[in-house]
């Protein structure tokens, strides 16, 4: 039985009225890996997670967690999965310690043992000083950590993290990443959703890119990035009238057309090899095209999106909102 995947989902569908929030998604999460679900707001990431966690009924398709059917055995699924939401789901009116005591008691611990578990977890997550403060007065990062601590009380083998770092400052974000890595080192399997490519890149072993309720790509971070080039060269020409000429030169050098940015004068060039940036710059100099700025960057999520779906991640936002 150890061969079963942590998550095995086929053709998942969720409809809200006429809107298909999740439109036939397949997912396969192997044991012990971090699997990232990447996509913009409204792509269906959270909805997918909620269906797998029994928080939303599944409208179509099949899903199993460690071989247990999600639709037929919700109570068993809830024993296998720990959920940490985008908005910390802890009780505002209780203190940090009381929250953990409550969840420990709900999971079957007697009060004295629940107290010990709470003190133990508060220590591990560096929340001791917040033990007796109401959550109302917690910072965003502390809430998130408490929320994650609460998900770990039962030591679930599979942990769902819904946008674990959205809204956190960079330092807290780094701490959260370390925490997630430690959990995996201790044998947990993690399914996380994120809007950030760099987060998926840093953490995930494999990534599925979701757009408008469908999976548009899947692979390791390296495979995904290779599909848009390992890096991008951003240029701005001094004279906007030369934009077309610059684009032609780039195409000559790389054999591919650059993407022209809306504020004419800007060019975004996907590079499979960062060394080719120099070739482009030299060719432009020889062609007497003046440039004002040049920068080589990692592809952004938006560029991955543009390449994979033919539209910007932002367009999606506007349509859904």
């Amino acid at each position, binding site marked *: *039985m*150890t061969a*079963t995947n*942590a998550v095995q989902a086929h053709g998942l569908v969720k409809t809200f009225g006429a809107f298909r929030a999740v439109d036939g998604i397949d997912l396969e999460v192997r*044991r012990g890996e971090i699997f990232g679900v990447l996509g913009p707001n409204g792509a269906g990431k959270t909805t997918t997670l909620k269906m797998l*966690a*029994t*928080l939303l*009924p599944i409208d179509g398709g099949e899903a199993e967690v*460690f*071989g*247990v059917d999600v639709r037929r*055995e919700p*109570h*068993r699924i*809830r*024993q*296998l*999965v*720990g*959920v940490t*939401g985008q908005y*910390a*789901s*802890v*009780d*505002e*009116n*209780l203190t940090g310690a*009381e929250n953990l005591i*409550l*969840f420990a*008691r*709900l*999971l*079957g*611990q007697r009060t004295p*043992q629940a107290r*010990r*578990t709470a003190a*133990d*977890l508060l220590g*591990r*997550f560096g929340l001791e000083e917040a033990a007796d403060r109401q959550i109302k007065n917690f910072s965003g990062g502390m809430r998130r950590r408490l929320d994650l*601590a*609460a998900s*770990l*009380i*039962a*030591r*679930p*083998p*599979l942990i769902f993290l819904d946008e674990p770092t959205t809204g956190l400052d960079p330092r807290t974000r780094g701490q959260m990443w370390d*925490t997630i890595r*430690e*959990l995996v*080192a*201790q*044998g*947990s399997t993690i399914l996380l959703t994120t809007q950030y490519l760099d987060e998926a890149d840093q953490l995930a072993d494999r990534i599925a890119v979701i757009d408008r309720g469908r999976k548009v790509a899947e692979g390791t971070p390296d495979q995904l990035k290779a599909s848009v080039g390992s890096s991008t060269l951003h240029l701005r020409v001094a004279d906007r009238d030369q934009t077309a000429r610059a684009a032609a030169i780039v195409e000559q050098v790389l054999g591919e057309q650059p993407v022209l940015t809306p504020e004419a004068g800007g060019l975004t060039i996907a590079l499979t090899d960062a060394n080719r940036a120099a070739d482009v710059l030299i060719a432009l100099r020889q062609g007497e095209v003046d440039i004002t700025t040049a920068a080589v960057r990692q592809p952004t999520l938006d560029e991955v999106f543009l390449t994979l779906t033919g539209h910007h991640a932002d367009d999606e936002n506007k349509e859904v909102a």
Partner: protein
Amino acid sequence: MTTLLPDTAPGTTSVTDADRVLPARPSLRDTVHQSLAMAWRATKKMRRNPEQFFDVTLQPILFTAMFAYIFGGAISGSVADYLPLIIPGILAQTALTASMATGTQMREDMDKGVFDRFKSLPIARIAPLAGPMLADLIRYGTAATITILVGLAMGYRPGGGVLGVLAGWALTIFAGWALSWIFCWLGTVARSAQAVQGIGMMIMFPLTFLSNAFVPMETLPGWLEAFVKINPVSHVVTAVRDLMNDGNLTGEVGWALLGCTVVVAIFAPLAVRSYSRKM
């Protein structure tokens, strides 16, 4: 490296055994344990928001004094003669108001993020509902106690003695608890806490005023008397009067208990079903 996972305590699950056989549903013992944990949460909340107690402390004082002095002379000839009639009536009224508040607060609570966690935990679906309702027994108890004390202070001398009064007190609390399942169900189907309150008012006013809580039934027109007779609140009021004023365990007490039990039997499953399906 310090580990983040808590030490494996006996009875808790462990990362390594994802393949062990898990119970398919919570046992009765688990359900009771989980409901008690939820009740504990509710009492913590009460302690931090004492304004939740306004309706069960100030309202009984106000209504008992007001109704007794305004209607006493007109209905029973004197305030003292009206008290045996009105005190059980006010008891039923406050129980109903308090149980409405239970539903409203529960609806408010359900909109909070923590309910997402409750739903994701392997706990009985009834526990998040049963817990607060159990804790609200404290509120019904407070309301009933204050009403009786105000009555006694105004000169109410119940003929049923201490035991009769205690029995009436207990029946009031049970009735409040039973009726709160109606409002709890409303809470799971309504869109907002305000909606629960609005609908609750529409249920509460006819039920309390179109009953024998404040006036003798015989003074009403025939068609209204017919409704008042089948109104469950009337049965509760009559039962409480029988217990407190006469110390009699009459058939009305039986009817009141049966009525309350039927309400729970119908609305508790409805509430749990709509909670676990919709929320």
